[in-house]
């Protein structure tokens, strides 16, 4: 208490004496415009990571575990980006796990049974046709849900609760409960694994392109603000942001490249390509996994949609005040339909990732994923009261959830107990967020 009193008096006196004094930390955050809430989440994530690292005796923060963590997060992270828009408009989607199961099963049957008969086994077009069909079906299911919610005025909770049962049942119906395997070889790349990663060179190329994009985005934003004579960030703050962004990107690439192919696979590869087996083993970097790249791409596209397009602006306006949005002339019902259609498409992408990873489509695929997806969005700062949320936050939320699970698996904690912990963490996270928001007001 005394601390805060001191800083406030200091900052009031510093107004007269100049900008040099004052709270250095708060000045830093104001200048860089970094979201402190997001920073808190990253802090929590780091605590979880370091905590598990110590508890597991150094098993958690290894390239291998982090790489696996990134692959495991991808599917839920993809769906969480859509769940943000759903929750922001004061809706909920309980059917995402079932849509994932159904589209996954359809894609499984297409690529493992129907298409090989028509095109031949492992035909190069199979994965693409399969994926497109999955996206289409996911989109149609979402559109149906959205239309019922928007035009028949049935609450989204009920519509998607129905959808949860209907599509899970439909998943079973497609093959009478049989598991479909194996998946097409090209399709399987979407699941990660040794083949489904892009290797060291390409990982570095992707990393460097990302860094260039960060620099370009910051320069562009600055130029725009200059053109209209708006207040700008101090130059040092821009440099800090660039350095921070690039360090995170390149650090992640470096870690992904530190994870090498398993010895057996490397040996087989060496034999197949007539490479002499060197002393101490052959180290081939996995690099970034394809599903992770897909999730990042989805995150970027969804952020673009949410912040740069009219549609995204409408989503947030509807969440903030549905009546005002309606009176401003926004076609709120169509926006709702589009949100759920988008959610359906994202479920299909997640289904592709998860069936490819499992190398099978089962009728239990995606069970409970709706809850993990909602939890990820909510932990990531999406307010169930509507109007607030960010795509990046939700993806980070998915990472937090997956980190907890992965860490508990490493610790050898039983599955029932894992659920108890995840459930409690969800409640505590939302409570902390409520406290934060109350203070921010």
């Amino acid at each position, binding site marked *: 208490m005394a601390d805060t009193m001191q800083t406030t008096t200091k900052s009031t006196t510093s107004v007269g004496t100049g900008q040099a004094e004052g709270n250095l930390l708060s000045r830093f955050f104001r200048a860089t415009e970094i979201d402190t809430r997001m920073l808190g989440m990253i802090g929590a994530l780091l605590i979880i990571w370091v905590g598990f690292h110590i508890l597991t005796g150094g098993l958690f923060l290894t390239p291998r575990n982090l790489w696996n963590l990134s692959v495991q997060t991808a599917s839920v992270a993809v769906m969480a980006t859509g769940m943000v828009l759903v929750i922001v408009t004061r809706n909920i989607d309980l059917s995402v796990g079932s849509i994932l199961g159904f589209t996954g099963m359809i894609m499984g049957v297409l690529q493992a049974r129907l298409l090989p008969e028509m095109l031949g086994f492992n035909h190069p077009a199979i994965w693409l046709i399969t994926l497109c069909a999955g996206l289409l079906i996911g989109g149609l299911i979402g559109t149906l849900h959205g239309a019922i919610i928007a035009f028949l005025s049935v609450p989204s909770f009920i519509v998607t609760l129905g959808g949860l049962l209907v599509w899970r049942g439909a998943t079973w119906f497609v093959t009478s409960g049989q598991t479909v395997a194996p998946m097409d070889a090209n399709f399987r790349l979407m699941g990660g694994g040794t083949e489904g990663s892009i290797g060291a060179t390409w990982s570095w190329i992707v990393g460097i392109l990302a860094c260039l994009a960060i620099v370009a985005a910051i320069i562009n934003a600055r130029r*725009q*603000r200059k*053109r*209209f004579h*708006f207040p700008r960030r101090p130059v040092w703050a821009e440099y800090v942001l660039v350095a921070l962004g690039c360090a995170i990107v390149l650090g992640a690439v470096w870690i992904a490249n530190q994870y090498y192919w398993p010895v057996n696979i490397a040996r087989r590869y060496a034999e197949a390509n007539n490479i002499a087996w060197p002393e101490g083993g052959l180290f081939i970097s996995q690099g970034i996994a394809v599903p992770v790249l897909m999730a990042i791409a989805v995150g970027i596209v969804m952020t*673009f949609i949410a*912040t*740069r*397009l*009219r549609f995204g*602006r409408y989503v*947030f*306006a*509807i*969440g*903030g*005040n549905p*009546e*005002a*949005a*309606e*009176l*401003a*002339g*926004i076609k709120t019902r169509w926006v709702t339909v589009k949100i759920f259609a988008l959610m359906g498409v994202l479920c299909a992408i997640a289904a592709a990732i998860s069936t490819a990873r499992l190398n099978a489509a089962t009728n239990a695929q995606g069970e409970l994923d709706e809850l993990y997806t909602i939890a990820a969005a909510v932990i990531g700062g999406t307010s169930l009261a509507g*109007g*607030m949320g960010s795509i990046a936050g939700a993806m980070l939320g998915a990472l937090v959830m997956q980190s907890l699970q992965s860490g508990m698996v490493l610790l050898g904690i039983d599955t029932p107990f894992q659920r108890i912990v995840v459930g409690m963490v969800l409640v505590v996270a939302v409570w902390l967020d409520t406290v934060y928001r109350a203070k921010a007001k």
Partner: protein
Amino acid sequence: MTEPTNPLVEMKNISISFGGIHAVENASVDLFPGEVVALLGHNGAGKSTLIKILSGAYKRDAGDILINGEQADIRNPRDAKKFGIETIYQTLAVADNVDAAANLYLGRELQTKWGTLDDVAMEANTREVMGRLNPNFKRFKEPVKALSGGQRQSVAIARAILFDARILIMDEPTAALGPQETAQVGDLIKQLKREGIGIFLISHDIHDVFDLADRVFVMKNGKVVGHARTEDVTKDEVLGMIILGKVPPGATPGPGAMKVA
């Protein structure tokens, strides 16, 4: 200006009912360019409902709306905006989780040639309009939720001005404001009036609007009691119209006037 100009808005014999209750029955009002018309009545008298028909929020059951003497087909808020009708609502004015610029352009966002939001241009225009309206307004980057009542109201008014409204509807525009902010809104109304904009002021408090208005329409139980030029009647007489439905000699009686035995 020798011959009387056409009315800007004419609402003729408007009726609407909700589940058997006649919220508005056979009501007619009109508005001329550069005129301020106050619509008075108790809560539930039907004035807000009548005006929401004009702004497209409700669909009328019967009656005609004429804009500049021509039939206007207003079915939703977008239609109303096409006729230059802008509405400032008492409570539902803004989406308070987005910033001022986003609210000003809500539903009519400026886009770049790529089809993305041109936030910079929108913010620039917002700064210009708000600078004219309320020079003290500085919080462009914050959600509207963080603003005071007066600031929020000026955002709502700026929105109407930005799109060259010809007909402005203000539903209890000063209800949430302090005395100084109320005076500001009053000045603003006079300024808009000079520009030839027709303004409907809706209020249940006669003191808010009597001095600003050129004419008053009084509603009671969904019907128009009568209308009068403010120079022909006193505040007390108008109060009598609001409370009892008694029409003074200076006013023209409507369908809702008290029957004199």
